[in-house]
C-alpha cells in the first residue's frame, strides 16, 4: 500500500485490511508518535464534511504532521472554474499526500490517476468512502474480538446508503450473516443480495426494528431521510418506526454494540446514549486511529 492511493474498499485485500486494523490498534495504545513530522498532508474538502475532516486533521496532528487545505470549495480557485485535475496537480507540489472529499462520483479515482502523490478518498458523492468502512471494521473487531461469523443488523436506508453497502461488502469477506431492517421503499438492492447468495452467506429481511434484536452482535443504524420518499405520507408512516430506544435493547446479547456513522438525527433516541452498548461516540474516536494507520502505511512510515 506504500505510495498507493486508497479510492475504494474493495481494492484492499483481506491481509491489507488486517494490517491497517492491527496498526490502528497500536496507535490506540500509543497515540502520540512524532513519525509524520517531515510530512505535509493536504485536506481538500470540495464539500463540507466537518467530522471526516477533523478526524483526518486530528490524526495528522497526533502524528506530528503538517496540514494544508480547505474545508469548502467556495473561496478557492475551484469557484473561479479551475478543473479538478489542475487543483490536484498544483496541490501535489505542496504536499506528500492528498485527502480529498468531493461531491462528484468517480472524482477520487480520476484524481488518483492524475496525481503524482497518493490520494485518500474521503468520500466521492454517493460512491465510496473507504476510511469510514475501515473504522467500522475496527470498531466491530475491537468490540467483538473478531470479524469472523458475526450477525450484523443493518438498519434504515439500505437502498441508497453508501456506508451500509461498503460495510456489507467488507464484512462478507469474514463470513458474516446479515439482517436487513428497512421500510419497503428502502430495502437492500438485489445486486447485494445476489452477491451474498453467491458467497453462500445468510441474510434475512424484516421491516420491524423490534424483531430478533436478541440475535444481533452489531446493530448498525443509519438515517431514513425524508428526501428519499416520493410520497411524503410514506415517510410519515415509517419515520418513527426506525427509532432505536433504550428499552428495545433489554434482551440483546452482552457483547452487542450499537454503531452509527453519525451525524445522528433522531434514529437513535438519546436514552440509548447512557447504555454501555451504545458505541457510536467511541466509534468516531476509532476513526482517528484508523486514519493514522492508513496514512502511516501509505507514507511508508510503518
Amino acid at each position, binding site marked *: 500500500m506504500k505510495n498507493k492511493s486508497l479510492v475504494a474498499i474493495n481494492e484492499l485485500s483481506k491481509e491489507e485490511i488486517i494490517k491497517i486494523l492491527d496498526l490502528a490498534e497500536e496507535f490506540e495504545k500509543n497515540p502520540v508518535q512524532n513519525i509524520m513530522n517531515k510530512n505535509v498532508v493536504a485536506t481538500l474538502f470540495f464539500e463540507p464534511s466537518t467530522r471526516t475532516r477533523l478526524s483526518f486533521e486530528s490524526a495528522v496532528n497526533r502524528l506530528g504532521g503538517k496540514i494544508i487545505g480547505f474545508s469548502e470549495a467556495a473561496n478557492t480557485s475551484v469557484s473561479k472554474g479551475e478543473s479538478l485535475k489542475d487543483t490536484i496537480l498544483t496541490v501535489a507540489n505542496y504536499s506528500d499526500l492528498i485527502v480529498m472529499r468531493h461531491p*462528484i*462520483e*468517480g472524482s477520487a*479515482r*480520476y484524481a488518483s490517476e492524475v496525481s503524482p502523490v497518493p490520494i485518500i478518498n474521503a468520500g466521492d*458523492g454517493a460512491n465510496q468512502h473507504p476510511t469510514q468502512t475501515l473504522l467500522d471494521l475496527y470498531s466491530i473487531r475491537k468490540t467483538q474480538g473478531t470479524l469472523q461469523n458475526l450477525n450484523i443488523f443493518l438498519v434504515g436506508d439500505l437502498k441508497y446508503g453508501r456506508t451500509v453497502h461498503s460495510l456489507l461488502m467488507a464484512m462478507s469477506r469474514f463470513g458474516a450473516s446479515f439482517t436487513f431492517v428497512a421500510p419497503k421503499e428502502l430495502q437492500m438492492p438485489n445486486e447485494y443480495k445476489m452477491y451474498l447468495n453467491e458467497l453462500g452467506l445468510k441474510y434475512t429481511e424484516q421491516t420491524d426494528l423490534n424483531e430478533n434484536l436478541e440475535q444481533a452482535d452489531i446493530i448498525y443504524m443509519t438515517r431514513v431521510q425524508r428526501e428519499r420518499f416520493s410520497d411524503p405520507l410514506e415517510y410519515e408512516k415509517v419515520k418513527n418506526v426506525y427509532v432505536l430506544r433504550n428499552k428495545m435493547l433489554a434482551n440483546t446479547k452482552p457483547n452487542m454494540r450499537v454503531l452509527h456513522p453519525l451525524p445522528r438525527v433522531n434514529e437513535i433516541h438519546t436514552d440509548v446514549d447512557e447504555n454501555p452498548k451504545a458505541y457510536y461516540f467511541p466509534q468516531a474516536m476509532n476513526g482517528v486511529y484508523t486514519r493514522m494507520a492508513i496514512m502511516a502505511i501509505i507514507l511508508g512510515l510503518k
Partner: protein
Amino acid sequence: MVEKKQLSVSAIENGTVIDHIPAQNLFKVISILGLDKFDNLITFGTNMESHRFGKKAIIKIADKFFEREEINRIALAAPLAKLNIIKNYAVVEKQVVEVPDSITGIVKCVNPKCITNVEAVKTKFQVIDKKNVSLKCHYCEKITDQEHMVYL
C-alpha cells in the same frame, strides 16, 4: 434476367457489407459510424427475415474499410454483426464484431454526477454483460445498460 439486374444494383465493387445488425438498431449503427455524413454510395435494407434475429438489417458501403476501433464502436449496438470486406466484387475477408472486455470513449456514463460528465475525462467502462451489453463505469461504478446508452 430480373434476378441478375437486382444483384447488380446491390452488389458493390469495393467496400464493406455489414450484416446481422438487429433491425431495431440499424439507425443507431448508421449514426455511430457517422454514415449519414458520408459521400460514399451506401445502400441498406432492414426488416429482412433472419432465423437468428427475427428481423435483421444490412448495410453496404462502397469504398470504405473500417479500422478495428470503428468496428468496436458498433459492437455495443450490433454485438453479432459480421463484416464482409469486398474487393473486386468478391468477399476477401470476413470480420466479426466482438464486444471487448473494456470500452474507452464511445459512450457516455449514464450517471449525471459522474466525473466523466463534469470534467474533460474520457469515459472508461468494464463490460460486465456481453450479451445484453451492460457497462460498469471505471470512475463512478454505476451501470450503463443498452437502453440508456448515449453515444459520444
